[in-house]
């Protein structure tokens, strides 16, 4: 029955992906004749005609669509106008850098936000709680680029401790990771705190105490798995935020990832690359959401079982 829950989620994720792909197709077609946009202004009529045939633009729309989906499925996103290489290739080269930054920021936000939130909940209404939550709100409310510039001013300009651009060493990672992860850490701290408080007030926590379970066990075995359920949901939303945040952060710190690539591709009107980035980002979001869904089902037996009986 658990398998059915996962299957339903998987099919839903596939449909979302198809939707993303179709959306990109529509946007590209609606925004005009691709040859006008994609080819240089001084292209000759022959060249334009050549590409129209090559790209199948002389075919009816539904045929174009099938062709497009087909090529996307085969990883064919066209040729980068900038350096005449396969667009997907250009994008994929940048993926490790972004992945490194994004994952590090994710780990950073989890390691910082969740313990802080739990700590604040366990010391509810104390000075420590208030301080932690002010810090969380600050982290959450401060725009990415602002925090980034602030850090550069402090740690690069004044103190001269950390490099501000590039990705050559581990030192280079510190500021971009903190910049990108801070907002998510703030949100996670706030959600972990409220989720934990909610759970601590539940009747089963009193039962656990009445059974003679020691405090650490009550927090670790009884409270945290319950509090994790809403936190994981938020984490899912935050991953989307991390991806868009990576765009800004990479630009501020000259981090050679897909965010920076996208900004450059847009300003160079390198549409195949833009398209590849957008699809890749969409793909990542769908996949991470799928993982979150699975995690959620794994954490919460109620979801797992009711999700299964829905399909039955």
């Amino acid at each position: 029955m658990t398998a059915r829950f996962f299957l339903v989620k998987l099919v839903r994720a596939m449909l979302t992906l198809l939707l993303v792909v179709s959306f990109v197709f529509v946007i590209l077609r609606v925004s005009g004749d691709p040859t006008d946009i994609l080819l240089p202004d001084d292209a000759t009529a022959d060249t334009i005609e050549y590409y129209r045939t090559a790209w199948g633009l002389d075919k009816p729309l539904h045929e174009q669509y099938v062709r497009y989906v087909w090529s996307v499925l085969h990883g064919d996103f066209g040729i980068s106008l900038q350096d005449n290489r396969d667009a997907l290739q250009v994008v994929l080269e940048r993926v490790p850098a972004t992945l490194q930054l994004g994952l590090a920021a994710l780990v950073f936000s989890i390691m910082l936000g969740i313990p802080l939130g739990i700590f604040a909940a366990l010391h509810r209404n104390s000075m420590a709680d208030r301080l932690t939550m002010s810090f969380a709100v600050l982290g959450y409310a401060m725009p990415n680029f602002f925090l980034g510039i602030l850090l550069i001013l402090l740690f690069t300009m004044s103190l001269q401790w950390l490099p501000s651009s590039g990705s050559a060493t581990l030192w280079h990672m510190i500021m971009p990771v903190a910049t990108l992860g801070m907002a998510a850490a703030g949100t996670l701290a706030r959600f972990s705190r409220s989720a934990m408080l909610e759970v601590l007030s539940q009747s089963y926590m009193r039962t656990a105490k009445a059974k003679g379970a020691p405090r650490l066990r009550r927090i670790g075995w009884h409270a945290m798995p319950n509090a994790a359920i809403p936190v994981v949901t938020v984490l899912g939303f935050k991953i989307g935020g991390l991806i868009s945040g990576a765009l800004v952060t990479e630009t501020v710190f000259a981090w050679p990832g897909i965010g920076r690539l996208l900004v450059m591709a847009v300003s160079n009107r390198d549409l195949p690359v833009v398209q590849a980035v957008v699809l890749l980002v969409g793909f990542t979001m769908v996949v991470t959401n799928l993982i979150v869904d699975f995690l959620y089902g794994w954490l919460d037996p109620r979801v797992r079982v009711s999700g299964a009986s829905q399909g039955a």
Partner: protein
Amino acid sequence: MSAPLLSIENLTVGFSTERGPVTAVRGVSLAVDAGETLCLVGESGCGKSVTCHAVLGLLPSNGRVTGGRILFEDRDLAAFSERELERLRGREVAMIFQDPLTALNPVHSIGKQLAEVLILHRGLSWDAAKAEVKRLLDRVRIPDAGRRLGEYPHQLSGGMNQRVAIAMAMACRPKLIIADEPTTALDVTIQAQILELLRELQAEEGLALMLVTHDLGVVAEMADRVAVMYLGRVAEEAAVNDLFSAPCHPYTRGLLRSIPRIDENVARLATIEGSVPSLHAVPAGCPFAPRCENACTACVEHVPEPLVRADGRRVACFAPVAA
């Protein structure tokens, strides 16, 4: 006469609230003998649950025992450290709560939750605990125990969950079980089954039961002795037959009159006039005086102390109901 198993002496419990401090339990004395059932009755808010929670040190963070002693086998639980309480809870004194679904943890299977008590107090391994869990589930008559122990609370009915909670309370063979309205959240037929089960297990194990209830029918069925509480005090405490046949305190009489009876016209059903005062405005004298038919000047000015009468009853009243 040997000392009672549990003896609550002059217990006072205070809460700090946004509207200032309140005293929810004011000088309650109760005794439960080994193997007997004491029922705690009274209108909502009179301090039944708070008294129960105080015994096991389960008061919420804004509540505190501010006076009195809670003697369990001559040890004062009110003076116990958290460590000592942890060793006592679930092992010597166990508790059953009102709503069985919310009282069980939704993310752990009932088997694991049951095993936890065994692991905590009896030092069993998971495997040994599992066998014992099956035995316990059989004991509280949950059919198909082997399969059920892998299920989660939301997959079981209210009655089944309460059976699990009872099994959990019984797991370490405690001497006393405190049950706070264990059947209030259940259907009538299920209520009867659960009470029946409690009574059987009590007889088999010889354990004492402190049972909170709103339902005088439950009292009649289960109790050896009854304590009637009103606004944080014990108004009257008596053997169950005495209490039902001849209530002494006007409040007890009022409660008994308000039981619907099949042989009487429903329209004549009496209720007690007025409402329970707020804890923020407790009357100076007898807390029940403003609603009492028998109230005299002494009642308004002084708090009546509970007096033990010749027949063993304790009544806190200046103007008791004439026998």
